[in-house]
């Protein structure tokens, strides 16, 4: 089975600091997509950022950026200037190519402390 691994079940960071969440994945496809989703305590899962595997440039969305290392099959999320509202469960996911299903990691619970 092709898997997505998030090795950090929980992390914490001080407000205004930077934190990096790790994700590695397995795939045999050449064309695929990677995603980070955020699930705040209110439960609605929302898309934070996406990366197309054929693009070398790392995706960025405001304070959120990724470090995509295709050869290493690594896709980490960096959150800069952390805010209290960033407290959430974060899920890494892989999908695309010929397969429209997403495979999710088990999640990382991030707590931002004041």
């Amino acid at each position, binding site marked *: 089975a092709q898997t997505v691994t998030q090795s950090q079940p929980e992390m914490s960071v001080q407000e205004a600091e930077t934190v990096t969440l790790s994700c590695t994945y397995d795939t045999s496809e050449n064309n695929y997509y990677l995603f980070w*989703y955020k699930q705040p305590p209110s*439960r*609605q*899962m929302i898309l934070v950022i*996406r990366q197309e595997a054929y693009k070398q440039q790392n995706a960025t969305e405001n304070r959120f950026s990724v470090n995509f290392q295709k050869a290493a099959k690594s896709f980490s999320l960096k959150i800069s200037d952390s805010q209290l509202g960033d407290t959430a469960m974060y*899920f890494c996911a892989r999908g695309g190519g010929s397969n*429209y*299903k997403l495979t999710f990691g088990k999640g990382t619970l991030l707590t931002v402390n004041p």
Partner: protein
Amino acid sequence: DVKVTQSSRYLVKRTGEKVFLECVQDMDHENMFWYRQDPGLGLRLIYFSYDVKMKEKGDIPEGYSVSREKKERFSLILESASTNQTSMYLCASSFSGAGGYTFGSGTRLTVV
């Protein structure tokens, strides 16, 4: 804004009951999915559908069935609810694998 709506936020059912979880999307998406979310296990795919009246089993289909009579609606059915089906259920839809999913708010089901 694009929306996926799950009919119930919280649900309490008795063991052996037949349970229907409803999901409706307004984006004309072809693909719809049901996941369950449990602490430490992440999201596990139960069933998905890529067209009306089409369905495919995911990773944990046992004890569940689905119905997709209309494009916008995808229902998850627990034929005879059991306590090990107590969980958070998430519905999602997508146009393609490239764009990712849009999720509903989730249904917290408790089977007693």
